[in-house]
């Protein structure tokens, strides 16, 4: 007796998934065909891998002090850019959010500008800042501020739009002005949410500012880049470990902050 299966899958879904599978495989095929992957280069790299791994394993503490100093610089740059960014973003977010903007069109235009600013990667902002201000941590602060501010504005604005509604209506209906709505109604309600967002952004900013040294904005990244280009892998591995522990501790810290904020709410 032949076993016959009863089809139970949803026809349309199945067809859609088959379409997706075929088209993505096709895309991959075309890409693989067009890409000029150099297998010899990969093989040569694989041969080099164990030697470099061995060098990385020889941890060296000779440059520990320098690394620590630059690591603190990186964190300070991120901290300052977030502090300055929050001040700017708090003001601008109320101008952008759809329910508190003084003028709809103005809000839209401002929002579009910040979308474009956000789309350009941080490293490019820092390159631009370095090109105009010269090397150093101040260029890092300036470069990091653009993505920080635009990120904070977007998140703050969506939080304002979510929380707004009734608060705004209530204050407006008793004759409160725009300033009243913001200072007495929205800011006290949203303060904890804003702080949680800021803590999260600080984590991202530190990750970015660690990188920024690689394009010339001071901080631990410039040391790491130097070690890589001079093949000082023993020093490099100490730097990488330090970055790892910093990021790990920071992640734990922000998770704690967010938990507490959540409990307070």
């Amino acid at each position: 007796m032949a076993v016959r299966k009863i089809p139970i899958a949803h026809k349309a879904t199945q067809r859609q998934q088959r379409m997706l599978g075929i088209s993505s495989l096709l895309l991959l095929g075309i890409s693989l065909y067009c890409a000029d992957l150099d297998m010899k280069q990969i093989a040569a790299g694989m041969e080099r891998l164990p030697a470099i791994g061995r060098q990385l394993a020889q941890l060296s503490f000779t440059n520990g002090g320098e690394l620590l100093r630059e690591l603190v610089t990186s964190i300070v740059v991120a901290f300052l850019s977030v502090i300055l960014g929050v001040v700017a973003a708090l003001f601008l977010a109320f101008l952008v959010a759809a329910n508190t903007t003084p003028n709809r069109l103005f809000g839209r235009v401002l929002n579009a500008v910040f979308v474009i600013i956000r789309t350009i990667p941080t490293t490019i902002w820092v390159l631009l800042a370095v090109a105009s201000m010269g090397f150093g941590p101040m260029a890092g602060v300036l470069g990091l501020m653009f993505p920080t501010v635009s990120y904070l504005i977007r998140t703050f604005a969506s939080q304002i739009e979510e929380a707004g509604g009734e608060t705004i209506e209530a204050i407006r209906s008793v004759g409160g002005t725009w300033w009243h709505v913001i200072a007495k109604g929205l800011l006290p309600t949203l303060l904890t949410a804003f702080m949680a967002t800021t803590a999260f952004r600080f984590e991202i900013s530190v990750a970015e500012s660690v990188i920024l040294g690689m394009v010339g904005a001071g901080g631990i990244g410039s040391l790491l880049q130097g070690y890589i280009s001079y093949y000082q892998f023993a020093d490099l591995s100490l730097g990488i470990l330090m970055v790892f522990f910093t990021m790990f501790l920071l992640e734990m810290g922000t998770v704690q902050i967010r938990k507490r904020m959540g409990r307070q709410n």
Partner: protein
Amino acid sequence: MLKLTVIPGGAQARRKRRAKQWAAAAALLLLTVLSLVYIRFDAAEFILGIPTFLRFLFSDFLPPDPANLQGYIKPVADTFIYAVIATFCSSVLGVCLALLMARTTTPHPLVRTVLRGLISFLRNIPFLAWASLLVVIFGVGTTAGLIALIVFGCGFLARLYAESIEELDQDSMEALESCGATYGQRIKHAIIPQFLPAFYSWTLFMFEINIRASAVLGLVGAGGIGALIKQTMDLFQYGKTSMVIAIMVAMILLVELMTSRIRRRLI
């Protein structure tokens, strides 16, 4: 909705809370001042630097120089091609790792702990540091960039996938287990159908990230459109740089539009 905060304990507790808030604000201020001193922050120079920066931006960068547009086609195409390959490889590897890593599907708790530690290490080292190291190992060019994208992407995706798998409804898994289904059957019939929407969503997100990352990869010599940005900036051809940046922004926005379309269709 506005929530009324009821402060328990009355005036004294309120005063205590106030004091705590003031202390936090003061600590923050102190920290800011210390930071400003630490990097020898010169407020005058910084504030004066902003107009200089804007002037530099508007007079040197704008307008974009549209010369030599054909030359940009290959890096843009390269960026797309490598993003597709990297997304594909890292999603396949990511699913395998995620199944081993998720609490509900891991073959052994020890495997889970070890993998989680490894991936956390992979993820917490900045992407550019990996890319730079891989450029030293594999030589300058797109190959190093592709490997960096895959290594970073598979760590990133494995974590997101594993979290999605852990959030899934456990009932179907249990039902199949009680029927005597094998591990493979359980994954195929209980996990995968439920997991697909999250899988599509995260994979599309990864594609977006890969497109963005390729802009940065070029800065450390790993090919893609970022290489053009670095080249033109090193030659002080800022008009060309702004053209490349404009192309990049258009590309990223286009990809975002596309992925959000596909996402809406699929989920």
